[in-house]
């Protein structure tokens, strides 16, 4: 194999259970985002735009769609001679095999893959973040500091710092202390889960971690604290741009709505740092006479006869006359029949919403009150559901075709 200076290992095996029905059948990185993309497009596009042409994608949970989507990496121009994208699932060798036990363990299991490129540095990424970042700048910083490990950090609001892994650093940005979800955070520099390791150091500590039977085999919980204890040089790389973890329904919904802001921080129309994705073969979006669209993004293949406000529509969505969609995310190929009202909901791919149905809005607010959770203000309809005409749906997760409709329907 051709020697590479830096390769990326992209952690894409997580289940993402806090995304409720959105990840019932697909891995979190494969969840559609932004009207045109899947979450993993952001990390893969960052790699392509940063000149990192060798990416190992570690998959485990429900990987079929993700594997198919990534393919040879053609969509991100990551195919070609030498590197490219390689899907790395758990495997069996001559001494048996096992599932990936944690983030560190999954990379440990693929040391052979890393070795085949003889890289000097390994970039570890998560497949579930929304951001545009030049990893090359981070790599330059990492080399300049001659760090064993560089961790990308971002300032988070002080009141939220307790939800993150917080880095305490000295004046030179060398990390002195790492606190996972501290009750009294000493600062507000949160780890973004983006690491660059010297390859030899990574291998040493992955082996140590694998031999430690008490470890959870997690980078944040085990590997990095051990490296700190043993005096490795770990530096924080302060990142200034837009970055969102979309691990919960609420954060997913909020990040989607942020794209619609006129002064959105995530520059979707920026040609210099394009986010790549799969191309669809739909014609342009069609807006009928009498349709209405305000503060929304609408992808190709949509046919709009109804009203769209503050919403994101993926490709191939049909909105019939008299239907109203507000504050919602509608994934690909959804059919919204005449007279439907959708308010603050996330509708999965290929869903059919029958005539006159009401989804979200008041119904989910009531349910959220009962559950005492703001999160449940947002109604999630799972892929391929079929919503009966004139039904009123609050917060349910799943309405499978040919199955009984599940709880959460406020019958009216």
């Amino acid at each position, binding site marked *: 194999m051709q020697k590479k200076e830096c390769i990326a290992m992209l952690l894409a095996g997580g289940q993402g259970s806090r995304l409720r029905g959105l990840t019932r059948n697909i891995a979190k990185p494969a969840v559609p985002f932004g*009207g*045109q993309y899947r979450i993993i497009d952001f990390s893969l596009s960052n790699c392509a735009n940063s000149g990192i042409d060798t990416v190992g994608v570690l998959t485990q949970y429900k990987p079929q769609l993700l594997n198919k989507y990534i393919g040879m990496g053609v969509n991100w121009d990551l195919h070609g001679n030498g590197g490219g994208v390689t899907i790395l699932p758990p495997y069996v060798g001559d001494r048996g095999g096992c599932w990936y036990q944690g983030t560190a363990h999954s990379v440990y299991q693929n040391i052979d893959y890393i070795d085949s490129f003889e890289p000097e540095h390994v970039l570890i990424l998560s497949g579930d973040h929304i951001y545009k970042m030049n990893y090359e700048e981070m790599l330059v910083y990492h080399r300049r500091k001659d760090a064993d490990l560089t961790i990308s950090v971002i300032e988070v609001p002080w009141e939220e710092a307790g939800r993150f892994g917080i880095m305490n650093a000295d004046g030179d940005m060398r990390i002195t202390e790492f606190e996972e979800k501290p009750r009294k955070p000493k600062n507000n520099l949160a780890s973004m889960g983006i690491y660059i390791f010297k390859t030899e150091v990574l291998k040493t500590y992955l082996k140590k971690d694998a031999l430690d039977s008490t470890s959870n085999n997690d980078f944040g919980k085990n590997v990095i604290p051990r490296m700190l204890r043993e005096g490795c040089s770990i530096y924080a790389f302060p990142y200034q741009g837009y970055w969102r973890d979309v691990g919960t329904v609420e954060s997913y919904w909020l990040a989607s709505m942020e794209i619609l802001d006129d002064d959105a921080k995530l520059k*979707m129309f920026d040609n210099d740092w394009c986010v790549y994705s799969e*191309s669809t*073969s739909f014609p*342009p979006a069609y807006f009928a006479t009498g349709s209405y669209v305000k503060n929304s993004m609408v992808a*190709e293949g949509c046919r709009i006869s109804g009203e769209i406000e503050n919403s994101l529509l*993926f490709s191939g969505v049909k909105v019939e006359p008299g239907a109203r969609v507000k504050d919602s995310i509608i994934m690909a190929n959804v059919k919204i029949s005449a007279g439907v009202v959708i308010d603050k909901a996330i509708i999965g791919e290929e869903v059919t919403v029958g005539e006159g149905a009401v989804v979200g809005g008041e119904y989910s607010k009531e349910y959220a009150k009962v559950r005492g959770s703001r999160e449940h203000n947002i109604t999630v309809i799972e892929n391929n559901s079929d919503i009966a005409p004139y039904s009123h749906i609050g917060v349910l997760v799943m309405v499978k075709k040919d199955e009984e409709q599940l709880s959460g329907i406020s019958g009216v």
Partner: protein
Amino acid sequence: MKKVLGLVHQMKNEGLLKSITHHRCMAAVPFGGKYRLVDFVLSNMVNAGIDNIGLVTPAGSRSIMDHLGGGRGWGLDKKHGGLVFLPSANGRKTGRRRIVDLRDFYHNLDFLENREEEELIISGSNVVCNIDYHKVFQGHLDTGADITVVCSGGEKEGQVFLDADEGGRIHRLIIGKNKKPDTQPVVSLDMYLLKKELLVDILRECADSNRWDLIRDVLAKRVEDLDIRAFFYDGYFAVINSLASYYRCQMELLSPQVLQELFFANGPICTKWKDGPPSKYYRTCRVSNSLIANGCQIAGVVENSVVFRKVKIEEGAIVRNSIIMPKVKVQAEAYLDGVILDKGVAVGKGVHLKAPKGQPVVVERGATYFQEGAFI
């Protein structure tokens, strides 16, 4: 249809669509918000399982080469077969305008002879339709015709018209835009099915006689000794051979029925892969009866128009009955009606461009209008 080889010929068309075809061959003419004309013929072939396609590429055809690349957008980037560019025989010379120029195929005779397919579909690249070639091919086999010509009834514009009897046998070809036969006009869709062997024979005869037009010099003259039959296609189609038909056909796409038939009912129409976000519709926009591709930022009014990718229409601007090609910028308070803006045109603040009714006006690629209150 593994056994069928697709051939796409190029019409000589300098200036047929005014400045739009000054720097592009007909196949590369932008169409329908995100396509180029060649996308229809290629997609129709691919959708029927024809994945060996030879495409005549005239000199100076960078835009078509760039668009097609290795054929990835159509799944034609294959180890075996796929898309093959056939250099045109004519170079840059513009000789006599032939309808189907067989010299281009003769120039690539070795390609034809080396292919193992026995059957051919030859098609032009200026017909917009979504046709099932399986059916056409079956019809061709059923009648046992030497040559099947795909055609359609109706009053639409065309280049070649046919006189066919009730059995579909063609007895006369009439050439010219407005020379429709008196009885039941039948218009050719510029698609021909025949055996490769027959084409090779025809090419050798053409070489002897130095007459090279499949229509004028072969079909029109040999209606008696060859069994030439019409296959009637009854779906939506448009032959793009004038600015009027180019404009009218794109306005027809704004009919939900035409849109459904052309893009959703049969196989997909594929094009070059492009990246870009969905279009953003601002609070100030008003959009009605229009097609809008991805990557646009719409803050103004768009009515009865086709808008290509990466177009920016600012607040207060009004775009009516127009075709707006990629990367056009329309600044605030500008007013456009009945215009075709080629790629990258910039229209300044408050500028009015209005074409006389029924006579669309083309604005050349990259032109800028910044003078306030300018009229065409």
